[in-house]
């Protein structure tokens, strides 16, 4: 089992979420698209792609929510034939993050939402104070790739 957390304080809340909700994949990222923790991915390229797309989808959904309801949508669910995704934001003292998870018939949207609420609360509890939180360090190529994806999504390419 491969599990990577860039910051130690994320490890325990993420482990609990994955165990409780029985999800296949999980990803916590900075809104810029920088990965902070992951579960279930086996290739760095997949993580980079998922982060870039998740950040872009989150921005798109937030903007759509602002236009429709005057405030950003905070969660998104998409059901495929076999697998489903759930994307939502998690706010802590050290900043806002985006959480993406993929699940199949072993779990359900109800369980994922239930345990995501707990994960969000545990993350907020574990998060360091803003002064202790390290600044995200973006890889130049990664940022360029993410900007390219965002540009395509928003029609600027």
């Amino acid at each position: 089992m491969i599990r990577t957390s860039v910051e130690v304080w994320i490890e325990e809340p993420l482990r609990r979420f994955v165990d409780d909700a029985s999800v296949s994949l999980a990803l916590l990222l900075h809104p810029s698209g920088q990965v902070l923790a992951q579960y279930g991915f086996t290739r760095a390229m997949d993580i980079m792609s998922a982060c870039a797309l998740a950040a872009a989808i989150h921005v798109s959904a937030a903007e759509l929510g602002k236009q429709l309801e005057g405030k950003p949508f905070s969660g998104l669910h998409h059901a495929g034939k076999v697998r489903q995704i759930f994307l939502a934001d998690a706010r802590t003292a050290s900043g806002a993050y985006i959480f993406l998870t993929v699940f199949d018939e072993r779990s359900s949207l109800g369980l994922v939402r239930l345990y995501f609420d707990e994960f969000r609360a545990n993350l907020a509890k574990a998060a360091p104070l803003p002064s202790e939180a390290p600044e995200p360090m973006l890889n130049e190529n990664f940022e360029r790739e993410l900007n390219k994806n965002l540009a395509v999504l928003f029609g600027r390419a």
Partner: protein
Amino acid sequence: MSSPFTPVLDALTRQRGVRASLVVSAADGITIDSNLQIGQDGSRVAALAASLYRKARKSAAAAGLGGTGFMQLEAETGRLCAIGGEEIVLVVVADRSANVGLIRVEMLRAAEALA
């Protein structure tokens, strides 16, 4: 606001000792309609009960026992009852002192009405 499930849920909640009754999507574990007493967390119960019922069905099938009908979970201070199928699960949360026989009959009747 009433739904097609409201009469069924009202009939179940009228039973003595029933704290909550819910119609839940079996696949998603999301509440479709519910009748809850104060203090009951409907979405939490719905997600976990639907998951439990789905796993009970799979366990019964794996053991070669065929389809699952009525499921009852006895806890320290109450009972959780569930009945359903591929699409919908009917869930009742009741006190330990509740007459589970009457609840069972009412749930079987409700399941027939919903089928």
